């Protein structure tokens, strides 16, 4: 009998059947931006032992492919001349990196083809990314790694720029980020590749690239069961004093504090330009005070964030 459960199970079974672990014999433009050199090293050395990604991620990959098709169609419909190099990948030597850009867009003036990478993003991520710096400053390590793809493409094709075509996965809206080729960053990527290949060439296995220090990367790492790096976390102290009670009290006062400030603002507004006002049992006086400008000296501030479990 056809039930919702039956349909969901069929879909789930199909998605799971799509999850595959492929050999990784070299660095790729799509992963050279990964923050952990140890991961990239282990991925090539022990690709067959990596933990397969889960059903959720497979769904994201599949949906990403659909978004890519949608985006390319939109660009073509808009009259842009697009080349989709779907058949053949390319390589760069020293260090050996393979890749295949999503599309190349032709400049209508001089006919030059510029590499472009299409990314389907969540609405929140899409809103956040408006310049190349936003990519580099992203909290998500994989977003920080995106520009590396374009750096490799620009290096390969000797282009001074590339493009990110960002599609909002909720609204379908597309925005374009122009990415100038950054020689320093490209050079750093190439040197990173050289270090990884040097380590792989050491048959003794004693040369192992450094692991990254970002614990969020380690927690999701498909090679974590093979990595000898320490997982170091800041330790948590258990307070046996009055901290919890103080936080509770602050929470209780929050509404009153807000109302206090709002009322203060209303008082200021009510007084307006008047210098002296009688208000029932109060006399309110107001005067203008000139504040001198000053420069806040650089200092280290301690920010305290309270999160409810």
């Amino acid at each position: 009998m056809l039930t919702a459960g039956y349909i969901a199970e069929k879909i789930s079974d199909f998605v799971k059947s799509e999850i595959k672990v492929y050999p990784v014999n070299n660095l790729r433009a799509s992963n050279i931006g990964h923050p952990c050199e140890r991961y990239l090293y282990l991925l090539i050395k022990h690709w067959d032992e990596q933990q397969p990604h889960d059903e959720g991620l497979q769904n994201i990959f599949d949906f990403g492919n659909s978004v890519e098709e949608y985006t390319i169609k939109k660009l073509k419909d808009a009259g842009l001349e697009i080349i989709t190099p779907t058949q053949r990948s390319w390589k760069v030597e020293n260090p050996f990196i393979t890749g295949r850009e999503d599309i190349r867009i032709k400049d209508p003036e001089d006919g030059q083809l510029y590499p472009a990478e299409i990314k389907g993003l969540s609405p929140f991520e899409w809103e956040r990314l408006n310049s190349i710096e936003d990519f580099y400053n992203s909290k998500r390590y994989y977003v920080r790694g995106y520009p590396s793809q374009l750096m490799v493409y620009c290096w390969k094709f000797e282009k001074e720029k590339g493009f990110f075509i960002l599609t909002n996965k909720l609204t379908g809206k597309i925005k374009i980020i122009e990415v100038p080729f950054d020689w320093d960053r490209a050079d750093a990527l190439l040197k990173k590749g050289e270090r990884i290949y040097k380590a792989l060439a050491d048959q003794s296995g004693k040369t192992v690239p450094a692991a990254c220090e970002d614990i969020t990367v380690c927690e999701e790492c498909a090679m974590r069961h093979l990595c000898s790096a320490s997982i170091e976390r800041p330790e948590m102290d258990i307070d046996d004093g009055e901290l919890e009670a103080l936080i509770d009290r602050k929470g209780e006062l929050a509404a009153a504090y807000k109302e206090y400030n709002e009322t203060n603002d209303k008082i200021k507004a009510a007084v307006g330009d008047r210098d002296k006002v009688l208000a029932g049992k109060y006399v309110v006086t107001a005067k203008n005070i000139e504040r001198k400008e000053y420069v806040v000296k650089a200092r280290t501030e301690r920010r305290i964030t309270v999160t409810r479990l």
Partner: protein
Amino acid sequence: MAENELMTVQDANDALIELDYDNVLALAERADKMVGALNKIMQAALKITNGKDWVLIGGTPYLQETGASKVARLFGISWKICDGYPMKELDKDGYPTYTYRMEFTMHGQTITAEGMRNAADEFFTGKNKKSVDEIDLADVKRAAYTNCLNRGIKGILPGLRNLDVSDLEAAGINIGKTKGYTFKEGSKGGNTGSAEESGLVCSNCGEKISQKVASYSEGKFGRRLCMNCQKAAAKGAIDVTPKEEKQPTRGGRRAQQAPEPEDYPPTPDDDHFPPADYYDDFGGEQ
């Protein structure tokens, strides 16, 4: 007793022990703080986990890798795979056993935990006993890693052990989302799936019940009851074996609970080997 006076106590073997009175008080105070800390750890851990992070085996909740990772993140537990590990040993039939040894550190305290899995386990070979060539050995290795990780995290945070269903429910965890398994007497693990296939019945009315329902009932009522009988038992209409009362202790009720058996989590070599689905929730062991 005067300050700093020595008091004499007698231990179980009638041997006399001399204790400094201040030291005893300090010890008691420290024990109180320790119990308080353990309770706080348990409460915090329960709050950050959800029903899917636990599994009920024979009515007892066990934290799975997803939950253990959340807890490790919260409390800042660090770890490292010890040099020389993972180790691989082959049995006479060529099936490898992978062993991990890892060091876990929190607040300057370091413990070592081991985890191992054998490719010859029925979980990997299936009932038809796959040959070693047919088994994905990377799965076995990752399973050993996960096993070690679980043991280590729970080893360094003892407040996470010896919980029961009511503890989880009291913390607002939705037990309905928790997988549950139990065991048919005399068998090596029950079947998973529906009530029809489980081979388990309500001990009150005889209705067939699923693994999940049976396991929950064991944890809650000490008996395997169907959902209707559980409702009746909750209203007192069915006589259920009262669960062993937890002994009140100084500073908290966790202090005198028995330590978790060393063989946790159960392995296929145990009499009560859980069904394959049990391991589905241990990351990387699908």
